[in-house]
């Protein structure tokens, strides 16, 4: 077992190394940091530009492989390089990581739990009015891009604020004006979190409930549930003990992935509600031609995906007795 896990881990590390290296090659050839200086007025002395680009290992006059080697040996010392204007990439990622975590954790977890509950419940009521209504609503949300959902909630929130003459909904940044009362700091943060968290929950519940409903329908129709009913177990117990338990096994895999990949998954939410998290950083890195920045974000997200893969392997092994037996 341990040997098997070790082999898989080694395979994952090689995979990640190749993926990140290819990303570096792509970013280094496609993003041209020199263009940042070309639009400056008054024009900057080309020698100065060249010196600064060389300092941050971004000059395309240096052969690609040489730049790659400098970058790679830097990483081995924990140095992820600098942006064209000299910001330390590793520092940026490590601070923005926590911003993303603060924004996304509640929304993602609450969304998954509620989605599973809603999906399982609608499956037991297949084709009743409640099921049809929820199915139609989740179809609507799934078909709506995150950026449209985000902006619509903002429009509604502003209408609410204007109608009531309050600033109940805050939608820019992590913190704003802090009042002068006990726990004002916390209330302010909660206010700023409310709207993006609602958006995240909405999106997560919609997709999760669809998945869970299908899984639940499969297990509700399974022979062992019918057997349990035939032996006289009440419907409720048969559903909870037999159907729901099996239907939750694949959900475990999904949850492991969703939590691990949440960091860069909410680019739109971060952008719309102006949270300086990792997703926003990735987009900014591309527009600001920050080669080292975007490669670091990609690497971080790759690690998250692989952690998710390993976690889901372990999760299945714990939850599913059939896997343990093999």
């Amino acid at each position, binding site marked *: 077992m341990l040997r098997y896990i070790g082999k898989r881990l080694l395979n994952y590390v090689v995979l*990640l190394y190749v993926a990140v290296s290819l990303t570096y090659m*792509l970013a280094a050839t496609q993003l041209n940091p020199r263009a940042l200086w070309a639009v400056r007025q008054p024009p900057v002395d080309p020698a100065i530009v060249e010196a600064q680009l060389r300092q941050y290992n971004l000059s395309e006059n240096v052969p690609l492989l040489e730049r790659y080697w400098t970058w790679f040996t830097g990483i081995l010392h924990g140095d992820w390089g600098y942006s064209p204007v000299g910001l330390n990439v590793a520092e940026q990622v490590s601070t923005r990581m926590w911003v993303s975590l603060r924004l996304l954790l509640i929304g993602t977890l609450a969304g998954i739990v509620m989605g599973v509950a809603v999906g399982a419940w609608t499956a037991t009521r297949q084709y009743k009015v409640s099921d049809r209504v929820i199915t139609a609503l989740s179809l609507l949300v799934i078909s*709506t*891009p995150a950026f449209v959902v985000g902006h619509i909630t903002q429009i509604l929130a502003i209408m609410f604020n204007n109608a009531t003459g309050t600033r109940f909904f805050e939608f820019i940044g992590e913190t704003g004006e802090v009042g002068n009362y006990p726990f004002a700091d916390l209330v302010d943060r909660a206010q700023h979190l409310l709207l993006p968290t609602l958006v995240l929950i909405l999106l997560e519940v919609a997709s999760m409930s669809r998945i869970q409903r299908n899984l639940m329908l499969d297990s509700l129709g399974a022979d062992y549930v019918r057997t349990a009913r035939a032996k006289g177990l009440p419907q409720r117990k048969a559903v909870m003990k037999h159907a729901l338990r099996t239907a939750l096994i694949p959900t475990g895999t999904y949850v492991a992935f969703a939590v691990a990949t949440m960091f860069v998954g909410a680019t739109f939410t971060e952008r719309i509600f102006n949270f300086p998290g990792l997703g926003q950083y990735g987009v900014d890195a591309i527009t600001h031609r920050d080669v080292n920045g975007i490669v670091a974000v*990609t690497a971080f*997200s790759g690690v998250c995906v692989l952690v998710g893969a390993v976690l889901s392997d372990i999760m299945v092994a714990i939850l599913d007795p059939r896997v343990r037996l093999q």
Partner: protein
Amino acid sequence: MSTATSAIAAKPAKRLTRGRLIWRRFLRNKTAVVGAIGIVFLFGLTLFGQYFLYWKFDDIDTNAFLMPPDSAHLLGTTQAGRDVLALTIRGLGKSLLIGFLVAMISTSLAAMVGASAAYLGGWYEKAMLWIIDLLLVVPSFFLIAVATKGAPEGESSWLILVVLLAIFAWPLSARVVRSLTLSIREREYVLAAKFMGISPFRIIVRHILPNASSLLIIDATLGVGGAILSETGLSYFGFGVQAPDTSLGTLIGEGANMATTFPWIFLGPASVLVFLVMCVNAIGDGLRDALDPSSASGGQA
């Protein structure tokens, strides 16, 4: 005795073909039918809509900057005095085109790679699975954005976007096709064809892919929705379709900054986009119910 024979005779004499069966099951799903009608309507709008409109998408009405919807401009105008309705129809056309092209390319790729990996096996299968993992491990959104950033601009730059979206869209489907092929390749008719010395390529195309066709059709349909969402997401950030050309995402991205004060620039294209993706997803759902033989939701055929 006589009643029994008449009961049998009363049944339809002809057996339903598979196509008719699927067609009936699809028609029974009202949401899917509405979705199909919606898509046909949107296609008609992009093909013939411009002939009914007074304004062209690149016209500038210097008498109307940022005007709310009225009789002259049914969906209002933008900051530059362009007609939002004309822009929306133009953007819709581009988004539809990109969505369908990407879905076709990526589903074909997924079908060929997935089926050949499972059928041929060996080092080829290992290599393909490794490439699939490689493409899945990195965030495709950022990579496509990086690649389009450095791509040459111009009239046909959206074609590069199609290729990039397709490159990152096929891997997951290919895995599903592969696992399905693993069971199909053990069937007797495939073995028979193999022992008759028919080439692997012919076996895959003639015997394996037709048996995976229901999966492929569903995959392609849902792929259209996925591709449209990816394209509009990229364009929203300004990475996808570039000005002067426009797509629904570009329009929404431009309108979003002013969405709270001038909502029509945002709401017009946003509602069209949501309607479009809903139609595609509804058709996908309906097809899944109609094509999946074990699906209970199709009702009795």
